[in-house]
């Protein structure tokens, strides 16, 4: 038996293990699930080690050290020690007495995400989308585009009205907000349909694996 074939059998065994949950919770499923939890933790451990920890931290420190020993000067790359230090603080959460120190590293993470997202969201999801909504409402010669443009402008406009919080939804304003909700619901319907599509595709993929790759039925 080739290692590839053994691999396919292992994969099929684990696939059936997870699927067995559909009948009822059982030791076979519990085994597969526990293995999944362990293996996925290990997977991320390995990936973060080689792809973040090593290149971003160790490599920079090694560089700083090489400069220090070969040229005898303190290089800018030593600042990575600070980043590494903040990282180590994160691990202190495991120890109740000093666990509060991990808030420092979390504060750094929160600050970076907040700062990055502030400008990024405002630009790409705010300004760019507003620009995209500035469309002519009447396009000569194309009824489809005309209707489409009107739908986009009205839908975006009313949808935004719905998200207005400092004015009561009454009268014309309330009417617009209600139209906005309809647009949101149609959007959710579309998302719903696409999510179902996606999940079914994954199931098809697994079934195909069992029937074709494992059993070779067709």
């Amino acid at each position, binding site marked *: 038996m080739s290692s590839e074939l053994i691999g396919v059998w292992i994969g099929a065994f684990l696939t059936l293990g997870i699927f067995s949950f559909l009948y009822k919770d059982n030791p076979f499923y519990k085994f597969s*699930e526990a293995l*999944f*939890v362990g293996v*996925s933790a290990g997977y991320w451990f390995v990936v973060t080690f080689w792809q973040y920890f090593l290149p971003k931290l160790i490599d920079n420190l090694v560089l700083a050290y090489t400069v220090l020993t070969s040229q005898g000067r303190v290089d800018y790359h030593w600042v990575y020690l600070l980043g590494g230090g903040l990282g180590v603080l994160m691990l202190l*959460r495991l120890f109740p007495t000093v666990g509060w120190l*991990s808030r420092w590293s*979390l504060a750094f*993470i*929160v600050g970076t*995400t907040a700062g990055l997202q*502030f*400008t990024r969201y*405002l*630009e790409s999801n*705010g*300004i760019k989308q*507003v*620009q*995209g*909504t*500035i*469309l*002519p*409402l*009447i*396009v*000569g010669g194309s009824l489809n585009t005309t209707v489409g443009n009107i739908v986009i*402008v009205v839908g*975006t*406009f009313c949808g*935004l*009205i719905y*998200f*207005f*919080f*400092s*004015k*009561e*939804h009454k009268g014309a304003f309330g009417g617009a907000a209600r139209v906005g909700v309809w647009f*949101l*619901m149609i*959007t*959710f*319907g579309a*998302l*719903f349909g696409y*999510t179902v599509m996606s999940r079914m595709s994954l199931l098809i993929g697994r079934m195909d694996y069992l029937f074709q790759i494992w059993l070779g039925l067709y």
Partner: protein
Amino acid sequence: MAISALIILILAASPLAAQEPPTTEGVALEPQGPPPAPPTNVVAKDNPNDKGGIINITWERSADDGVGANDVTGYEILKSKEKDGVYEYIGGAAPGATFFSDSNVRNKVNYFYKVRAVSPFGSSESLPSVAASSRVQWFNFSRLTLFLLSAIIALAIFYFISKAKGGRQLYIRRIAGLEAVDDAVGRATEMGRKIFFIPGIMDMDSMQTIAGVTILGRVARLAAEYEAKLEVPVSRSLVMVTCREVVKEAYLNAGRPDAYNDNMVYYLTDDQFGYAAALDGLFLRERPAAVFLQGQFYAESLILAETANSVGSIQIAGTAMPSQLPFFVAACDYTLIGEELFAASAYLSKDPKLLGSLKGQDLGKFIFLLVILVGVLFITLNSLVGLNLPNLAKIF
């Protein structure tokens, strides 16, 4: 003639021709025609809006690129520190290209550039560009709109927060689903069953978790007042710590510190599906009267909502994850949609800072709505009556 044109075409398309290293002393092939016309009008300029270190070079294509003899296989960009000095090859560009950016320059140093058109039959150089140097720009003007908008929204938020702190009542509209919080908690008390509060599966660095935890504060307060049983199973250790603080404070404020204990908030597992499966089991066993799903959810949303629905719980959900919202809307009694989640936390806590920032957000929306309205009006009038009003999509 036809055959030679074919050969030229093949040579031009062949990857080998394009990859031949730059040579000035002709090519290995027998010359079968004149060298291409040189590129013209070479302009070198500092790359705008950066910290320097980049010069952009543009040129007009050779008369034999795409038209004429149509035999140009690429361009080579040459650089020198002196106009009549020795020019060095610094990079190439594909046929049809008219742009190259040199990121190997020092600020405030003058450079000259030439562009050479290359064909199988030789090459020809353009005249040198005028001197160009890169320099530091202290402000990125291409982001001026973004900057102004950020500033306006930030200032508005400050203004409204200070107003709210000063005791001004800021109006916030009714949010469907929030009234239901009282009913849900009351029902749990009547039925003598538990309330579960799930603050999503992400850590405290998610804005949605933070909003969810703020809502938890209010729910806990109500639970303390009604003497309902509240449980908060979480999937992150720091979320657990934060939730404990929040729930404890709520019980204290409700005058029921005795009713609080740390076991109300507990950690299950970090693993997404492990957490979902554990909650599934809890819901089935405890048959809670009410379930709150407030925070950042992923694929597990569906499993949670369906199970809670099947045991007959009142469900009040809220998330800003568009792809999970449909499941909540379809399977839960009330759902806070996107921005409503953030608004709800302000609404419930009556915290002036939250209320003020919500007002600031609304101002941002107002600006966006105004721009859309005026922009659409202008562009429609332009196309209808042929006016020449500014296109806001380009300016904004």
